[in-house]
């Protein structure tokens, strides 16, 4: 009898350990959106690039994190964001971070938004500003087309007085 109970408890522990392990792996945004009901109100780990603005709202802040497929909103304590210095936009790669928190399919606190209430954040790869180098091929095309445009304009100007005569 005790053996049976032990086996059952072991099975339950293994099941939850497996669930724990599977949820501890960063989930993709596609998976979270597609299986939103499965992960609703459950702890998840999500990794992605911080994009756009960090929007501070008092004690908390909103960050949006993109894993390349979709961007998800993450509600997090402002104090935890001290290490986030670079956000993604044109000309910059944002910090790649991993957050752990509770996933909400339709968050009642935030008007039904699909979001994650994060309890912790970990910087994986620091973002950086990207150097904007002049694209010489495009520059050359601009000059060639400018030449053609001038030629067309001159031809129009030349032909007009001739017609007037």
């Amino acid at each position, binding site marked *: 009898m005790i053996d049976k109970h032990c086996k059952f408890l072991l099975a339950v522990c293994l099941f939850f350990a497996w669930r724990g392990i599977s949820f501890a792996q960063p989930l993709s945004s596609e998976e979270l*959106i597609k299986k939103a009901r499965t992960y609703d109100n459950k702890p998840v780990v999500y990794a992605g690039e911080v994009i756009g603005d960090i929007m501070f709202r008092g004690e908390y802040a909103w960050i949006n994190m993109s894993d390349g497929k979709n*961007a998800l909103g993450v509600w997090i304590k402002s104090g935890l964001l001290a290490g986030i210095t670079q956000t993604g936009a044109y000309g910059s790669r944002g910090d790649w971070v991993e957050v752990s928190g509770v996933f909400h399919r339709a968050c009642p606190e935030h*008007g039904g938004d699909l979001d994650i209430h994060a309890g912790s954040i970990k910087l994986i790869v620091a973002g950086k500003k990207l150097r904007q180098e002049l694209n010489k091929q495009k520059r050359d095309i601009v000059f060639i087309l400018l030449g053609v445009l001038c030629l067309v304009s001159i031809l129009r100007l030349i032909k007009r007085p001739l017609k007037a005569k």
Partner: protein
Amino acid sequence: MILRPRLEDIRSIGYYLGKIIIAIGLTMLLPIAFAIFVGEINPALDFLIGIEISLIIGLVLTKVCFTERDLNWMQGMVVVSLSWLVAAALGAIPLYLSGHWLSYLDACFDAMSGFATTGLSLVGDLDHLSLTHNLWRHLIMFIGGQGIVIVALSFFVRGMSGAFKMYVGEAREERILPNVIHTARFIWLVSFVYLALGTLALGITGIFIGMKPFNAFFQGLCIFMAAFDTGGFAPQSQSILYYHSFAFEIITVILMVLGALNFKLHYCLWMGRRREIFDNIESRTLFVSILVVFSIVAGSLSHYGIYPQALVLFRKGFYQIISGHTGTGFQTMYPGQFFGEWGHLALIGTICAMGMGGAVCSTTGAIKTLRIGIIAKAFIEDVKRVILPEKAIVVQKYHHVKDIFLDDKQVRSALLITLAYLIIYVLGACVGLLFGHPFLNSLFESTSAAANVGLSCGITNPQMPALLKATYMLQMWAGRLEFMSIFTLIGFFVAFVKGR
């Protein structure tokens, strides 16, 4: 006997098309100036290439096809339909050069979507797109919302009778002021006043919700252009969900509704005739249809327990319905959630909202509330005829700026256009079915494209087949121009091949 178009026809079409191409090219000066201001050099080069190609084509066309003749109806319609195709092709050049679109076809898709104020997009990595390209994406919505030809009429054409033919060709049969050029300028005046107010409201809200001031006002401007012109592009990949703000949602709802109102109604309101908004058949129909469609959607969402609270249900359901009904396409949920979570009935409700659209002479697409109102009135009239004694004279009238008696010609015209829209919705859905998508998904995306809405259930993506992309582009084009000028263009080509 079909008459083959004469050389003079082609010259007139070429000449006015050239003028419009020059106008489209010159609008690229704005992103170039902006690129210099924000120090985005490579994006500036993309737009320089775009403007140069446009000006070269425009100048050559106006020179080769020079004519002093005015446009006739056929020529005016052909110019308009071709203008939109050419605008998409030229507007796509800077987009494609940015490297964010997989192919030139994808860039053309987005340019057509922008000009037609649809909002479906194939852009990749939107969150890293330059500010200049983002401005252009929204600017083409602003231009397309007023009408590409309106731009040319307002700034590059001085009073000619052909102007009205092009104006009508752009699905704007109503003149607000006696002169069509003055009408075009009034539309711009309304748009610019709302642009200033809307951008200010969104910019200040943006600062309050924690955005940097420059981003708040830049994105406020972009969102305004997409909302008022019922376009639906957004500067960030999450659409309105990015902002996580109820205030932002309220402001965009107001702007979307304003964009869905007839410019003639705006004129009445500006002139102090506030009563018009309550009496006008379009605003009444819009109100009733929103109420009906939202009841269906809310009932379905509530039945399946999609949202935990009534307020949340209202916020999500109402926003998507207003966005769909006004033809905007902003989303506060992910495309996958439509089919993953909302039940079929809620989706059918959303499809109905998208299919109906806003007012005529507004920035929306789709069937439009005036036509739905007229069809409903005609239906009531017929029911009355059956119920009342045979000798009774049944007269039905409606109020649209003034009282108008309903006649068979109006009903026939409304029914024909409605039928054409329904056919195009179903045809697009059939193409979606061909590529293995379920019927409801296909109908949703097809209606969204043809009604120039932009809500997506996930079919529209850069990996979708080229034929499906082309189908949606054709739908956006035909839906925006309301068929007449496109039928004329087809007729023109048939006459060219078969005529004598």
